[in-house]
């Protein structure tokens, strides 16, 4: 069996009296789209937060390419090549699109202006942003210099997705990226996910939308009560069975 590119074992995360993760495992194989489904509160977001450095798990281990890693900040995970679109879009409303795309990894000017005066290469970033957005074909944004707060919810979502897709080098994680999107916009994001996978990058996709999940996922991780209940193959399990496992109405096939 191939080593998983990203693996978690026995993750535990407590918030006060609530245990969000009660010993959860996860395996992401190279080049696959792994969907994560589960009821509200099943611990899906908590799981991917632990994988992306957004929270530090109380117990358990995360392995990247087989070697243990410990992310204490989102930056650590990002530096390891893991890009995440969080459920609560992590964008800065007052900054423009280009600034948001490059947030935390700004390009600097060449020469002394950059090295001594630490000047940003604004033009470079705008151009690059323009290029990325075009390449992804996800939307026709007029001007990467537009402030994100002037975008609609769907457009903001697109910026966050574009950022992850553009910079992810090992893993891309998306937490309900289409929840607020219209039909057409959702379609574009699904296409983008497939596109990313086709570039060879594995994707973790959290979604409540079963048709979407069954359309794009290679494998489906079913989360229940803070644990991985099962991993199923969308080609061999029906949508209603997956939902039944998810809600506890049915035991997973073994």
């Amino acid at each position, binding site marked *: 069996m191939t080593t998983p590119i990203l693996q978690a074992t026995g993750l535990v995360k407590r918030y006060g009296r609530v245990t969000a993760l009660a010993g959860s495992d996860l395996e992401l194989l190279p080049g696959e789209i792994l969907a994560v489904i589960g009821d509200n509160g099943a611990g899906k977001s908590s799981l991917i937060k632990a994988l992306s450095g957004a929270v530090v798990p109380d117990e358990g281990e995360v392995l990247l390419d087989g070697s243990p890693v410990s992310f204490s900040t*989102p930056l650590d995970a990002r530096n390891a090549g893991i890009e995440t679109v969080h459920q*609560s879009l992590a964008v*800065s409303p007052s900054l423009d699109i280009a600034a948001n795309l490059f947030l*935390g*990894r700004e390009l600097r000017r060449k020469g002394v202006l950059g090295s001594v005066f630490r000047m940003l290469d604004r033009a470079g970033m705008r151009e690059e942003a323009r290029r990325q957005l075009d390449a992804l074909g996800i939307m026709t944004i007029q001007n990467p210099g537009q402030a994100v707060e*002037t975008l609609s919810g769907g457009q903001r979502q697109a910026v966050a997705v574009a950022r992850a897709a553009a910079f992810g080098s090992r893993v891309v994680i998306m937490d309900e990226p289409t929840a607020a999107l219209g039909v057409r916009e959702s379609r574009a994001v699904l296409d983008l996910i497939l596109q990313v996978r086709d570039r060879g990058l594995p994707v973790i996709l959290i979604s409540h939308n079963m048709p979407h999940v069954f359309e794009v996922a290679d494998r489906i991780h079913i989360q229940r009560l803070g644990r991985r209940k099962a991993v199923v193959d969308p080609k061999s399990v029906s949508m209603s069975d997956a939902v039944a496992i998810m809600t506890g109405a049915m035991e997973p096939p073994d």
Partner: protein
Amino acid sequence: MTAVVEQRDRSLLTRVQHVLHAQATIGPAVVLLTSVIVFALLSERFLTPGNISLILQQVAVVGTLAVGQTIVILTAGIDLSCGAIMVLTSIVMAKVASETGLPGLPALLLGFLVGTVCGLLNGMLVTRLKLPPFIVTLGTLNVFFALNLWYSGSATIRGSDMPSLLLWTGQTFTVGGTRITYGSILLVVLVAAMAFVLKNTAWGRHVYSTGDDLEASRLSGIRTARVLLSVYATAGLIYAVAAWTLIGRIASASPQAGQTDNLDSITAVVIGGTSLFGGRGAVVGSLIGALIVGVFRNGLALAGVDVLWQTMAVGVLIIVAVSLDQWIRKVKA
């Protein structure tokens, strides 16, 4: 994403609003310009080079504090302790030099260090204890002020006992017959430098982004705690520069000084158009804000208006200037 239906605005007022909106600090600038014109009409003494230079001198201390206050407010914080840090550092600089005979430069640097450490303490309390900045600085305000009283023994230190470097900010040079203090120049340089850094460096961007949405910035991979620490520490350093200007200005170091400067610096920042909610604003605006207050106080004084009405005017000014600014900002790009 549906294309947006645009429409041409018809009303003149809306058009004015749009023009003003294009440039962030133009609101405060308009207020400043208007008040300068009005006061110039009221008194022929107002627009003399000497008087202009005087206003610059009078706003130098609060203006310098406002530079530090601006970066704190940009991160959605607030610093009630800035006056206390300034006074404490001014006393440290002056007393160390006058008592131990330490030369000017090391005394100055020591003061800068103390200011930075005070700011760092604020930053640590904000980031580690996760307390609201208002509460942290309300607390440290008392702590720094007490330290100042303790270290100074409540005694004023006279300029004549200090090395001349500490008084340098109060020295003047003459340009075209107008005397300008080095303290005023220091302020202008500081504003320019900070404006450059905020606009053109990654750090500046991260300051805005952290103030805009802390959690989003953290999730985007910004070390927000580090940004906040650096902001408070830098602010502390800037307050120490203000302390230097203060010493030059009153040619002494008084432990009783600067007690109203906390609110005065916030007033300058707010009139200058920086949002108390963080993420929006500019340091140039704060300089303009400080100048507006200075122009009003000076202009009204020249017009022979009682201090009482000057106080009233500042109050009305705050509300009018911020309302105007908000009205201008209402136009979404």
